[in-house]
């Protein structure tokens, strides 16, 4: 549903850009939304580690959400890492993904849509998601959504993003954290349209992988289990504190 809506808006405003983005939209808009939700959830887990005493119920619910997303991404085969030679491309792809998110946010606000792909400048309140994701990119370009790789890389990339979380925790630099999350609370309604596609109801039809959302029982694969093991590690650290 979200992908279709976005297309219509694009036709209304920026027909020349639509062609370039059309290929990405149908397949990856849902993946982008899902990735964005995953990023947000990991940030939330990180934040609750910083609180005086984390609310266990909240932590468990967020961790379960992260698990669900990962299971689905593993099913889709999108839980993967970049092959080393493609590392150079990954940061640009990352910019594109966040660009689309920001663009959708702008459109919802009724402001002019971002000029185009070439303009890597991110705008609007959703831009605050960008520092989180782009900060990850130079560290571990493996975490780009589109490239394919083996299970070992999966473990590596997730492990690295956890490492980054724990490093931030250890430095406990409040100004740095505030910088990252200062505008997270600002117009959250913009995120609604961006992520509406994650809600119940119609899903972008053509993409087979998205059917995984409706599946009741994800079959665990070995790579899935190793990823879950890393997540369990996070949960263990959180709940043992």
């Amino acid at each position, binding site marked *: 549903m979200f992908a279709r809506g976005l297309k219509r808006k694009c036709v209304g405003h920026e027909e020349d850009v639509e062609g370039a983005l059309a290929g990405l939209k149908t397949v990856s808009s849902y993946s982008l939304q899902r990735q964005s939700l995953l990023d947000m959830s990991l940030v939330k887990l990180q934040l609750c580690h910083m609180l*005086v005493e984390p609310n266990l119920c909240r932590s468990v619910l967020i961790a379960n959400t992260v698990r669900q997303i990962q299971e689905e991404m593993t099913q889709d085969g999108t839980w993967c890492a970049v092959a080393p030679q493609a590392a150079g491309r990954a940061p640009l792809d990352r910019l594109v993904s966040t660009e689309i998110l920001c663009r959708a946010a702008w459109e919802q606000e009724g402001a002019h849509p971002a000029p185009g792909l070439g303009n890597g400048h991110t705008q609007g309140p959703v831009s605050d998601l960008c520092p989180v994701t782009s900060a990850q990119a130079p560290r571990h370009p493996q975490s780009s959504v589109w490239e394919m790789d083996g299970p070992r890389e999966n473990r590596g990339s997730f492990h690295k993003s956890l490492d980054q979380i724990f490093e931030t925790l250890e430095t406990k630099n409040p100004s740095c954290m505030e910088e990252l999350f200062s505008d997270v609370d600002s117009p*959250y309604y913009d995120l609604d349209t961006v992520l509406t596609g994650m809600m119940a109801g119609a899903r972008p039809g053509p993409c087979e992988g998205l059917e995984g959302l409706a599946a009741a029982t994800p079959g665990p694969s070995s790579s899935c289990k190793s990823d879950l093991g890393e997540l369990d590690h996070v949960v263990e650290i959180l709940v043992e504190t």
Partner: protein
Amino acid sequence: MREADTLRPPQLMEVSADIISTVEFNHTGELLATGDKGGRVVIFQREPESKNAPHSQGEYDVYSTFQSHEPEFDYLKSLEIEEKINKIKWLPQQNAAHSLLSTNDKTIKLWKITERDKRPEGYNLKDEEGKLKDLSTVTSLQVPVLKPMDLMVEVSPRRIFANGHTYHINSISVNSDCETYMSADDLRINLWHLAITDRSFNIVDIKPANMEDLTEVITASEFHPHHCNLFVYSSSKGSLRLCDMRAAALCDKHSKLFEEPEDPSNRSFFSEIISSVSDVKFSHSGRYMLTRDYLTVKVWDLNMEARPIETYQVHDYLRSKLCSLYENDCIFDKFECAWNGSDSVIMTGAYNNFFRMFDRNTKRDVTLEASRESSKPRAVLKPRRVCVGGKRRRDDISVDSLDFTKKILHTAWHPAENIIAIAATNNLYIFQDKVNSDMH
């Protein structure tokens, strides 16, 4: 259900600068206790209705205020223990004194509230201020006499039940036997005797051997109102477990499991979070249970485990906003729910200082607002409506203008009459049914 405009304008009490964290009527409804984030408890008492002052019929006045819990520091974990009062439960009154249990995240306290309206005067050895008399001035003996004095309400801590919980206490419930009570945290439920503070019995333990396997926590629990061996606890996955303490010492195996199968067409990444039960309450009859999850309230029949017998939508218009509500953490808000005295109407809070009431018999529902405007003397309490696009009436509020910082999490209903207490952040609203009081 009577129309909303038969409700009198509410009493508005500015209880404290602190956010009210719990509200509870006692068993007769004469007393109303509130706890706040600063660890204070404020008790209100209903004034007896008199013909001389018809306008103050049955109004609640402050009866007593005391500091129940103080902030503490756990040196072992280097964590602060909040003094916020999570729950208050009254004990059934057994003599002239009133007793209540109040709890923060870690410690439960039993408080005794007594009245003193007489004091002895005419001591032989002490003077009026209590200072020892110079014995040489005492020439005769007198018998001290009780003289009336201004009413003084004294509150004293009688028991402190500490060190029973590793995790945060979310509920306490007094057993119908009036001797025991239970306290539940995220992973365990303990049974205490009211007179014994140095030990408790663990009756439920859902902590996994390996904490990495933790996926579900206890969110609320309550004893059955009549059967002292039965209690229920709810989980973050939306299930209810009815346990019988006669079956085993450790009630990890439930007697009944109440769970509604997930609707596959409504499934999203937020399905589990919104199914988490934030409150569970037995009906006064003991036949039903009321649960609150993020978007609905459900009535369950104890005899049917497969699904609830009634489901009421509290604010379904939020279903399309779940992602934003996840981002700003509102999706984790824990709303409470309440039955009226006859179990015919149920009530729960929502956002924008709205609260909702559902009549189980007529199937009608109403949305009301706890606001300063509604507390003016001539104000008529009118039902509110949230519009979701489409036709919009004059006083409707659109979903996007809802204030999510104004949440009504805590509500209580008088055990017998149509009197409700609504906690809106740091204000307490008490609504009374006009019709009732006109009869006196």
